[in-house]
């Protein structure tokens, strides 16, 4: 009987120690997620973070998922055009995914910035822009971006440099979208798909130049 109080005290002490450790581990984990690993900052503070529930971005940026909303213009500024006209307006080769052939995309162009956007229904957007001449080569850049943004992996798709970001490689709070960047002869093509990463890669693999119309 005399051992009971001691055991109880021992359990209580152990309980408090483990509870304190639990809180510490939890706090460290949360702090790590909030702070992220250090990088090469100017000003001593750089971080990648993801929104908590209910948080918003500062600034008037629209919600990322709005790109899939057919009621909203894909581009602002920009104009809607035909797929055949996009190349001549943007003065670059435009690529169309053959994996969704038969579907006519809603096509948007900003001729000033040479941006082109193709929207297929409410689940797929293909965004295209020339690769800057002053940037590092795409493969080197994608490697750096995957590391800095802590998202996805790099490789090649149909022989072209690519950065593949599966939905489940993203942090909590980031949009539930598979993203594939592929650089085809100086055009950076980004596939945003509400689909599996395998389907998004298949879409990127099927990109072919659009004939100018």
């Amino acid at each position, binding site marked *: 009987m005399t051992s009971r109080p001691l055991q109880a005290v021992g359990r209580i002490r*152990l309980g408090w120690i483990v509870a304190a450790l639990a809180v510490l581990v939890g706090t460290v984990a949360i702090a790590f997620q909030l702070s992220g690993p250090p990088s090469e900052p*100017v000003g001593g503070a750089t971080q990648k973070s993801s929104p908590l529930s209910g948080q918003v971005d*500062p600034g008037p940026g629209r919600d990322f998922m709005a790109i899939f909303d057919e009621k909203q213009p894909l581009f*602002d500024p920009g104009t809607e055009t035909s797929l055949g006209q996009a190349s001549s307006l943007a003065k670059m080769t435009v690529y169309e995914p053959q994996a969704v052939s038969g579907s006519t995309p809603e096509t948007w162009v900003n001729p000033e910035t040479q*941006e082109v956007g193709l929207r297929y229904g409410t689940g797929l957007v293909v965004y295209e822009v020339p690769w800057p001449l002053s940037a590092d080569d795409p493969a080197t850049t994608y490697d750096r971006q995957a590391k800095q943004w802590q998202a996805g992996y790099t490789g090649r798709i149909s022989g072209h440099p690519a950065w593949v970001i599966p939905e489940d490689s993203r*942090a909590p709070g980031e949009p539930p*979208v598979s993203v594939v960047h592929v650089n085809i002869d100086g055009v950076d093509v980004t596939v*945003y798909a509400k689909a599996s990463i395998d389907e998004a890669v298949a879409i990127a693999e099927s990109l072919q130049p659009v004939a100018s119309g």
Partner: protein
Amino acid sequence: MRGSAAISLRSELRLLLLSAADIALVPLSAVPAVACHDAGSPWNTIYKPNGSDWLGVQVSSPGMAIYNGDVSCGRVSSLFVRNSDWTRWVEVGWIENAGSHYACVPDTNGPPKILAYAKFDGMTGCKNPASDLSEGTDGFKVHDDNQNGVWRYFHSGNEVWTSFDMSPFNSGLVEDNGERLNFSNTAHSDFDGLTRMNSSGSFTDWNSTDLHDGDSDDSGSHGCKYSDTHTAVKLNGTPC
């Protein structure tokens, strides 16, 4: 007795360790921010000049007004550069974030802090921690002057942050923004000395400046355009 105590202890230990794991694995998205912002907010009043292919944006001489209001929720005064479908943008200015309603950036309790923010394909980067700011009028700018996809952020001439590599995003539409999260706080902002970086790397005055979409989306505020390079946001009832 000893055996059952040991089993009980192991169970307790397992339970407590499980609690530790649970705490460690709780997704941040499950932690709610305290709701204070109006449904549909943020409320923004945005001015933009002509053109959509600028390498940077600046306000200086005198600059952007900084207010240290009694903010119970969120307030932003900022400049930004964005692409045409809103998937990529950079933003610089100041922020009041009482209660962590904004993502990534530090909470504020007292004076506003420097805002340096980057958004790339749904992913977020920002300066955190960030310095307190005093009331006054300071210069701010953000640009990718060497066109390598890395944006540089400045306050009063000092470089305060650099973004991760955002290639191929290295230019875009420039705008200024006065913002609040609820109608209990003022939306007062003032930008005097607005310029944008052209393809030669020189800052030139904004021109043909106008409200984005022709109006503020803040029904309690209005924009004031004093000139192409000087805009402000004031509460309704307060004249320009």
